């Protein structure tokens, strides 16, 4: 039984004091401990960005990939060994700019991976350029006259693309965020958690204060039902996605692994020993002969 301590490391986090990412890290660690997972059975794939450093501070198997490619890599880990709990995490730039295509495809592929986007509406590590979730008009050194693009709406986008689990949490509300992450990990299939995680250094618009004032807990809405797609989309439109909670979930759709023929019935490929692979080799004779 792993404790919260088991998921911590000695390494001092490199984030700015007050950075939202601290809250996401501890919510994740808490969720893993609450779910009684063992550190060695958790694989975390992180992207590039301030957020992407999350894997440096958690005691699990960590793979820190190139910018934007967490989801394909996480898919690879999961395919190699479906017995692992696989988490992908990265920033809003990582997810919705350079990684946008993988995000949309992961959603429709529905592999059993939990994706935590640490959304600060900015490029933190490269010092404050606008990201795809930045507000219209937001100024940055790379857009001194203000952002001319409409922001990506990650929650609606995910739902429209066919996501089976879509939630939003806030680093300033660790208890709720922890619960959401736990549910996400439990979900069989692709679960997307947009974790609002303010950048205290570069983002002077989307601050803790701003969110404390504007976020509403969707689950408190009397009409709330987690599996009502149309309602969720309407609410998101109305609120400009300033909500928290599990916005939508669909527990019926099979995960990718379940749909792959014969896949989950077999021993995880990464666990096959040299001897087992040698033994499987014998079956290749037949395949070769089929070309004769």
């Amino acid at each position, binding site marked *: 039984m792993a404790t919260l301590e088991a998921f911590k490391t000695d390494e001092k986090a490199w984030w700015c004091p007050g950075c939202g990412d601290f809250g996401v890290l501890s919510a994740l660690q808490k969720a893993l401990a609450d779910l009684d997972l063992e550190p060695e059975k958790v694989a975390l794939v992180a992207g590039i960005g301030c957020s992407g450093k999350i894997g440096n501070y958690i005691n699990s198997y960590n793979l820190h990939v190139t910018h934007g490619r967490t989801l394909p890599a996480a898919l690879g880990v999961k395919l190699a060994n479906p017995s692992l709990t696989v988490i992908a995490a990265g920033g809003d730039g990582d997810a919705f700019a350079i990684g946008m295509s993988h995000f949309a495809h992961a959603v429709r592929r529905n592999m059993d991976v939990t994706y935590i986007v640490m959304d600060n509406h900015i490029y933190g590590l490269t010092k404050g350029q606008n990201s795809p979730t930045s507000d219209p008009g937001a100024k940055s050194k790379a857009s001194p006259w203000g952002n001319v693009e409409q922001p990506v709406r990650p929650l609606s986008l995910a739902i429209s693309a066919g996501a089976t689990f879509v939630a939003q949490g806030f680093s300033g509300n660790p208890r709720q965020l922890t619960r959401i992450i736990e549910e996400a990990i439990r979900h069989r299939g692709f679960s997307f958690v947009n974790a609002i995680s303010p950048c205290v250094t570069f983002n002077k618009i989307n601050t803790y204060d701003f969110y404390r004032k504007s976020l509403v807990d969707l689950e408190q809405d009397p009409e709330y039902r987690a599996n009502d797609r149309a309602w969720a989309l309407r609410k998101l439109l109305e609120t400009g996605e300033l909500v928290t909670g599990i916005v939508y979930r669909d527990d019926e759709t099979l995960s990718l692994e379940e749909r792959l023929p014969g896949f989950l019935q077999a021993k995880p*490929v990464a666990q096959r020993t040299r001897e087992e692979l040698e033994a499987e080799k014998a079956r290749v004779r037949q395949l070769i002969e089929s070309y004769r």
Partner: protein
Amino acid sequence: MAASPRVFAWKIGGDQGEGIDSTGTILATVLARAGYWIYGYKWFSSRIKGGHTHFKVRISDRPVNGASSDTHVLVALTQETIDKNIDELLPGGVVLADEAFRPRLPERTPAGVRLVPIPLSEIAKRAGGALMRNMVALGASAYLLGLDLEPFHEFVRRRWGAKGEPVVEANIKALEEGYAFAREHLPGEPFRLPSPDGRPKLTLTGNQALALGAVAAGCRIMAGYPITPATGIMETLAGILPKFGGAVLQMEDELAAVHVVAGAGYAGARAMTATSGPGISLMQEGIGLLSMTETPSVIVDVQRAGPSTGEPTKVEQSDLLALIHGGHGEGPRIVIVPSSVEECFSDGAEAFNLAERFQCPVIVASDLALGEFLHTAEDLPLEQVRIERGALVEGEELRQVGETGFQRYAFTPTGISPRSLPGQPHGQFLATGSEHNVFGHVNEEPENRRRMMEKRWKKLEAVDFPAFTYEGPERPDALVVGLGYTRGVIDEALEALRAHGASVGHLQVRRLSPFPAAELRRRLEGLPFAFLVEQNATGELRFLLEAHDAIPAGVVVEEVHKADGRPFVPEEIARPVAERLGLQGDLEAWLRAGEQLAPVGEAVR
């Protein structure tokens, strides 16, 4: 009856999308089952229907593994086929053409070539529809080549049995009518093929062989994205891996594909991707990640003509430098080059051992000719496939590590560090594309950086994959150096040269990275003359040899390289070497004589 040529060449040509490819494949497969060695070569373009295409089957009683510029029998389904291919016909050759398009031979037709119109379309309609035209042509060809029809029937039953009796019958009828027509109307006796050894051969492409090798080596995850001419690898594995509890994922692009491999390799699977030029360009960043995180991984590049979209259906060997040096920064990669269908298989397997032993990306540099053209093989070296998983660390060792943390990137004399797999207790570590210390923690201290760069490169020093294969006398007067698909072509060229008394050696480069400079230098030392054969515009192999100082002083090096999309044929190699060596005798005549139908004109009376 005509004399039997050394290699007999049958070709069929017509419009793309009219089954030219599969007709050639049927003939090749039937012949290979009968024990012939064959080589099936196609000329096609990036379109699905329309446009000229042709497929040549070269047939012999000994291994034949390259294209040629000679044809004995041309089956023409369009006039364009005749116009584009007539120069290849040898004296005594026959053009079997569909009467329907009123075929005619152009003026420049080589002497002694006969046009034999045959109502293919008409017969086909009778047999079961226009689609049967190719089967009629096959039937007629069977007669012309002196072959029994029964093996063709058997093929039809195996291939189309599942589609029901009527389909089978229509095909058989078409074959028979074609055969009968030819027997009745063709003048003279049929050709005589060399007699085969009777041992059925495997008929397959390099892509198929490579996929089989990967399966043999325990590859269970394949992530790809369709691209000519690499798709065959994904498609072959898609039919196989689910039966082995594995999976093939068609991803959204090559960026995704290579990162699936990164994740799977990290987690302990033997995983691969396969692509061609444009995909390799997209994967460069991901390959760098694999080098930096020391993740075992296999990437196949079935090269095609570039740059950019280039000529997707044409052969070229022009990714060599990109495969070794194409990534930003300096990350070690192993690059190996198969040069036969057997080597496609064994490299497809061995790549996984190299990947796990040296914990780095291994690139197999195949090419379109190897990957897509039909080869025969006696067998594939399955029994030689060994599985070596490298420095995987045991549970017990990890337990001893305990709380202090596992040094995934420990400094060792070989540079190779012990590797834990997700799921193993106490083995947790960070694999990052950022510079890191022995634990994997990000670390930019200059001294750590220096040692880590050194460690990663150090590993390659022990790579023991063969530098090259060599065949010939110890001290030949000329050494011909090739790589990839050119092996078979060079073999034929050297046979001609040797028949004229030349002392020639054949070196086929098998490893590009780490570049075997010392081995090559040693082999070249003291030789008067080396001749490089590579299919590209800038001479990339030459570039590598020079850069690595692998050419000893005194060795004269000439080269033939081209990038016109056509595979090399033996005379392009034999001719300049003969000239250089001042060979006596009529090489030209020999090159063709062996394939000639002697005496001219007798073949078809």
